[in-house]
């Protein structure tokens, strides 16, 4: 029966829905309801179409769709697709289910999406663009830009279509596939991060005066142990700091500034 009903929204409609999300998603992001208003304005034209003969149902749908929402940009499209599929099949009676789908999926999808898209893939494209860019070469940036174009125009509409066609049955099969993909992706990402800590972080120790004896920390001590050990040390300390004082990049930036200035004053670290 679902096959019969699920023909109202064409690929073009779903592309529009997905692109509306790309276009408006976080404009009114706030600490209270995060992307709630964004979700509403994205799905509203679809709601108008679904409930054009039933004003009360339409207002009810507006109310349900304006509740708290926050999800990773790409995978959120699956939720949009499912949302439309459920309402198309069940109508106003499906609104409770829509609410449940949104609330239960936005967390896991954000977790997977942040790891896969915002972390692993962004870091791989970003690090290639940075290393080539530092040499004055545009190639890495062009490759990254191609990916930035691919996401809103191909990937997100495809994910939206996937959510719409598969509906609720997608949740079981997809989460299994995605978690495997995330695990493999994480291995790739973590390997690259290890490399980047060695290549992009620069820590140079200076010469200290121990009871009249000049002692160069960098050449006489650390280089003998392991190259780039200062970078590894900085990584370990920052990681520990984040666990200790909360995951706030702003705090960590100020801490790094203060510690660097202090160590510069005593000559322990040099440029």
């Amino acid at each position, binding site marked *: 029966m679902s096959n019969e009903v699920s023909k109202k929204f064409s690929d073009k409609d779903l592309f529009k829905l997905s692109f509306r999300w790309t276009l408006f998603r976080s404009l009114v992001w706030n600490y209270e309801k995060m992307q709630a208003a964004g979700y509403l304005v994205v799905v509203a034209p679809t709601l108008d179409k679904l409930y054009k003969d039933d*004003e009360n149902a339409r207002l009810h749908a507006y109310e349900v769709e304006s509740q708290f929402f926050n999800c990773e940009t790409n995978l959120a499209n699956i939720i949009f697709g499912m949302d439309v599929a459920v309402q198309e099949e069940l109508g106003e009676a499906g609104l409770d289910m829509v609410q449940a789908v949104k609330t239960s999926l936005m967390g896991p999808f954000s977790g997977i999406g942040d790891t896969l898209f915002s972390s692993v893939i962004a870091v791989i494209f970003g690090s290639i663009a940075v290393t080539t860019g530092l040499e004055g070469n545009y190639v890495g940036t062009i490759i990254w830009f191609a990916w930035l174009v691919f996401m809103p125009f191909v990937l997100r509409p495809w994910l939206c279509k996937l959510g719409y066609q598969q509906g609720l049955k997608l949740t079981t099969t997809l989460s299994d596939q995605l978690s495997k993909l995330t695990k493999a992706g994480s291995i790739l990402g973590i390997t690259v991060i*290890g490399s980047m800590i060695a290549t992009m972080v620069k820590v140079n120790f200076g010469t200290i005066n121990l009871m009249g004896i000049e002692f160069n920390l960098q050449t006489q001590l650390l280089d003998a142990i392991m190259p780039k050990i200062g970078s590894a040390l900085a990584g370990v300390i920052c990681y520990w700091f984040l666990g200790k004082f909360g995951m706030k990049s702003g705090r960590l*930036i100020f801490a790094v500034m203060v510690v660097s200035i202090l160590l510069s004053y005593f000559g322990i670290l040099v440029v």
Partner: protein
Amino acid sequence: MTPVQIILLCLWAAVLQVDVMTVALLPSNTIITGIFAGIVMGNPTLGLIVGATLQSYALGLNYFGGASIPNYQVAAIIVVALCGGSLDNVASTIALVGIPVAALTVQLDVLGRIINSYWQHKVDALVPTGDLSRIMKVYLCGIFTWSLTRLAPVLICLLIGPSLVDTLNAIMPVWLSNGLKIASNIFPVIGFTILLKYMPLKGNYQYLIIGFVLSAYFGASTIAVATIGLAIALFVYNLENNNTQISADSEGGNYDE
């Protein structure tokens, strides 16, 4: 700087965060922003290098779940505009102006997200009317929030002009400006460690070590390490797939998270 240059750079700064919050295509990218500023200032390659340097601090930083992070795109515009077109000045301009301004934008981002509560309440008040066009009018006001919070620091720095760097250089003692340069050399690690917090590091330390050693000892490039990482990832993925196949066969398709 000519007025036309200032206007172009300010326009870019005004759409920058709007792009981050929506399409995320051009100005939201620190390197592309650097290149644009470089074109405006007549030296695209300098812009590319400034953008890439600042992007290395931003790798791994993301607005995860609405956390605020420094706007290195804002810093890229200012640094390219104020470094006087010379690569030799880039490091000190980044240390003296770029880094402090980027740190300040964290607070501006928090401010923006607080201001947006106002628009949220207005949208909420309109929801019962079901009037989409009125809701959209209020919703689009969010553009001002993101536009003005990023335009302000750029406009101020550009109006003061390149003398800002010279003045700061003259006032600051050497150990302080050196301290900021040291900090900027360490900055990339912040993004990497935050990233590691979001990744399943537990049980995966070995890959971090492999990547580090390949680059620290053997000087392997990022692309080389990424390729090796991909090989390991594929190996583990196939292993996992085979395992689930076997357990699915033996347990009769019993799903186990």
